[in-house]
């Protein structure tokens, strides 16, 4: 943990950026950015969300000033979530590749 005391204006600045990004993501949702299943919209929304999360993690949670071990823990947590989602989705996305009579989901 850090003995770094971050200045108030930094916290307030991050807060304002977070509010701006919130406004941005709401605004973006009103536009059809294309892609299958609205994928471009999803990409934008998730990127903004990741950006917001990163700001909270790095500054509000002091990770920017924390030892490397903390970075590894944080990274591992999100990476493991990615494993869960990716491998599970590998099943659902590839189910339609075989010509079976009644695919699930229809």
């Amino acid at each position, binding site marked *: 943990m850090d003995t770094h005391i971050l200045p108030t204006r930094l*916290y307030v600045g991050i*807060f304002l950026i977070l509010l701006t990004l*919130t406004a941005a*993501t709401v605004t973006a*949702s009103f536009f059809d950015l294309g892609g299958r299943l*609205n994928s471009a919209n999803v990409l934008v929304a998730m990127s903004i969300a990741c950006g917001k999360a990163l700001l909270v993690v790095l500054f509000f949670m002091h990770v920017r000033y924390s030892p490397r071990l903390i970075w590894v823990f944080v990274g591992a947590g999100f990476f493991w979530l990615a494993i*869960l989602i990716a491998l599970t*989705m590998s099943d659902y996305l590839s189910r339609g590749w075989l010509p079976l009579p009644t695919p699930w989901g229809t």
Partner: protein
Amino acid sequence: MAEHVAHHFEDAEQQREAATLGMWAFLITEIMFFGGLFAGYTVYRSTYFDAFAEGSRHLDLVLGTVNTAILIGSSLTMALAVQAAQRSRRGPQVVFLLLTILLGLAFLGIKAVEYGHKFEQHLVPGRFFSWPGPHASNVQLFFSFYFAMTGMHALHMIIGIGLLIWLTIQARRGRFTGSYYNPMEVSGLYWHFVDIVWIFLFPLLYLIDRHVH
């Protein structure tokens, strides 16, 4: 003020590092706990996109956005509370903690209003669910996720507020100063994490497809 070093630690620094690492280890478990819900959500949204989009449009965008701002604000006040502890300032600690609690309660209040609306609109999954349009069953699936995810999030907020109340009482007694403020720091980490969960829940539930067709 004497440093409160537990007997099994070598020194205050080891105790502090252990506390922070311990809370992060716990937050990793929380990532995976919510992660199960996010995984299920991903599966069904990709399968039933139209139904999910339709359900999403029935969520109150204004209330959701306001709540997002409130929660982000509460993260700010929490961070400032921890900063006040680092600076050994008792008064601001208490003020910012109380503000955080207030904002947290405001969030829950708005959530309760939203839940009330959903109940009136017959959108609560189960016996009383009713949907006039197509894909009714899949829309009910969307609302199952809406209630499961926001409900679990709200539960974590309630626990967090309880934690903050305890923290405020301790802070009022001047327990946290620049040389010892571990409980403040780790509670802050927990609170920010709950904020991050909402940062992802909000677009996934409220902003699926808001564009004007």
